[in-house]
């Protein structure tokens, strides 16, 4: 189905890489002992993380954080589970499960769709794409993320080692098929070098170092300052902003049920109901024409959801100075 291709752009792959880069670029646990198999420097530790992600080892991302940071992440996700609207969240995963079924059961209609490019080459590509899309959906549908009940017991160690690793594999398989640069290809090009070794300290007494990274966000070299925290190397900007960012994030979570959910839920739920109706039609379709009509229709609620994302961004933007508070 051509709709699936819409997401698989090069920009998307780069954005994915950027997300991971901005989210961590931290290091695996190591001691500066020079023992074989263990990173001897910040540069080696960062490279180990990049290579681990490139090899679809999601757990390296988790292990890159110190224990208190891991606790912050677990706490935040569990708080999210407590504040998020269960009806909307759970329905989203029910829809993904339905999509997996529709793709499995209506493969013939999907392959013979009259929408978009109908060349034999395209049909062949689509036949190869569908199992990969199904695998990605299956990973999500079997994950710990499928309900708020499960999310309330979120454990980053488990999710990163299991679901995240599988998703990294699935995404790579999709990118490979689509002929775009995959995350693993991108990460394989990343070069990390030590730019300074001044043994400088931050005000808290943590050791600082500077690394030059090439090939992650762009092909040009970027100089990034890292801070050693409890034996983990993390970007200094992340360390400096960690507590405040989490405080802000929790603040947004607290206002979510009263401010964001009422604003966004109607739009989300009408999209979800429309998805459900379209899936019903696709499952029951007795002709190619009927199937295509519903398949094309999937784009309408999808577009609507992209607007929800815009609303969400607006909601989470800091209020301008002097703006009236949302509630008295």
């Amino acid at each position, binding site marked *: 189905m051509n709709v699936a291709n819409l997401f698989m752009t090069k920009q998307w792959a780069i954005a994915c890489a950027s997300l991971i880069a901005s989210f961590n670029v931290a290091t695996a646990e190591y001691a500066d002992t020079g023992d074989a198999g263990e990173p001897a420097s910040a540069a080696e530790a960062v490279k180990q993380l990049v290579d681990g992600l490139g090899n679809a080892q999601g757990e390296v991302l988790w292990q890159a954080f110190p224990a208190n940071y891991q606790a912050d992440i677990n706490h935040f996700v569990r708080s999210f589970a407590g504040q998020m609207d269960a009806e909307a969240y759970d329905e989203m995963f029910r829809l993904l499960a339905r999509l997996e079924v529709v793709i499995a059961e209506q493969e013939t209609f999907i392959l013979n769709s009259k929408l978009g490019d109908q060349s034999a080459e395209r049909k062949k590509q689509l036949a190869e794409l569908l199992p990969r899309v199904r695998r990605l959906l299956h990973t999500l549908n079997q994950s710990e993320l499928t309900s708020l009940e499960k999310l309330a017991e979120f454990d980053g160690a488990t999710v990163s080692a299991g679901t995240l690793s599988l998703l990294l594999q699935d995404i790579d398989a999709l990118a490979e098929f689509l002929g775009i640069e995959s995350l693993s290809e991108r990460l394989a090009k990343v070069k990390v070098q030590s730019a300074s070794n001044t043994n400088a300290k931050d005000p808290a007494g943590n050791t600082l170092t500077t690394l030059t990274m090439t090939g992650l966000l762009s092909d040009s070299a970027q100089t990034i300052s890292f801070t050693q925290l409890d034996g983990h190397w993390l970007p200094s900007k992340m360390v400096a902003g960690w507590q405040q960012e989490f405080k802000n994030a929790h603040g947004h979570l607290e206002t979510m049920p009263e401010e964001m959910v009422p604003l966004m839920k109607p*739009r989300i739920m009408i999209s979800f109901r*429309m998805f459900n109706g379209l899936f019903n039609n696709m499952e029951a379709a007795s002709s190619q024409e009927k199937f295509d009509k519903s398949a094309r229709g999937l*784009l*309408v609620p999808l577009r609507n959801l992209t607007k929800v994302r815009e609303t969400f961004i607006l909601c989470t933007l800091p209020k301008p100075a002097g703006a009236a508070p949302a509630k008295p």
Partner: protein
Amino acid sequence: MRAGWIVSIAVACTFVGNLLAAEQLRARVLAKGESRLLKVAVLEPGGKLAKGQVTDVKVSYADYAMGYVGREIRAEASHYDSSWHLKKVFPLDGPLAEQANQDNESLNKLANERLTLTTLGVGDSVPEFGAIDQRGNYRLISQLKGRPYMLNFIFTRCAAPTMCPQSTRKMAELQDSWREQKAGQLDIVTVTFDPEYDSPSIMAAYAQAYKIEEPNYHFMTWTNEQLVDDLRFLFGILAMKENGTINHTLTTLLVDADGKIAYLEEGPDWSVDQFIAEAKKLQK
């Protein structure tokens, strides 16, 4: 004995049901009679009316007032009160009908090729399409080129006070306010989500109920759902049939004299004053 009664009642119900059951037919309107009677020649049979049969049929006042004489129509036929009654009458030919059909096929092709996450927005041209207005005339949207117009989507059976009824009230208010301000030309185009029910005469009655002034207000319908499906798809409007109604989102657009979207608002809370201010900017 009891079983006999049950069978008799069932037979009677079936008989009455058959009598009242509406079936679709195609016919050519030959002449207008008196008392809402049209003389038609049946082209495609419906109900007990046979192909080639010429008969009188009774229609609503609004359908009677349409210029359907000489034109082919599609309608639902029922027989009761000793006469045939037609409802949901749609003209199938007439000036611009062929062009409108061609334009709508092109629109469908355009929609099927536009498989992107973006909808038509400010700066985009409204694609060409044709429709049937509340006067029973085929119209092309390009006929409005050269003057700005408002565009929105409703359906006449909408029972949610803050959705279609409010939207139509605001359009009527906008029309009145615009006229009072003598601000220039501004047409209004309202397309139905529900072409299965909203025939030209239903839309004419709807316009009358809202005291909407013609001739610059165009309620548009079509002979099938394809047109509104394609327009909804291109403008990103959600609509689904649920529990006997149509649940939908609302988008209200202002289109400039060149046929490009100049301003739009989503949702039911759009402001008449805001649209008037935006429309004034378009006056040359």
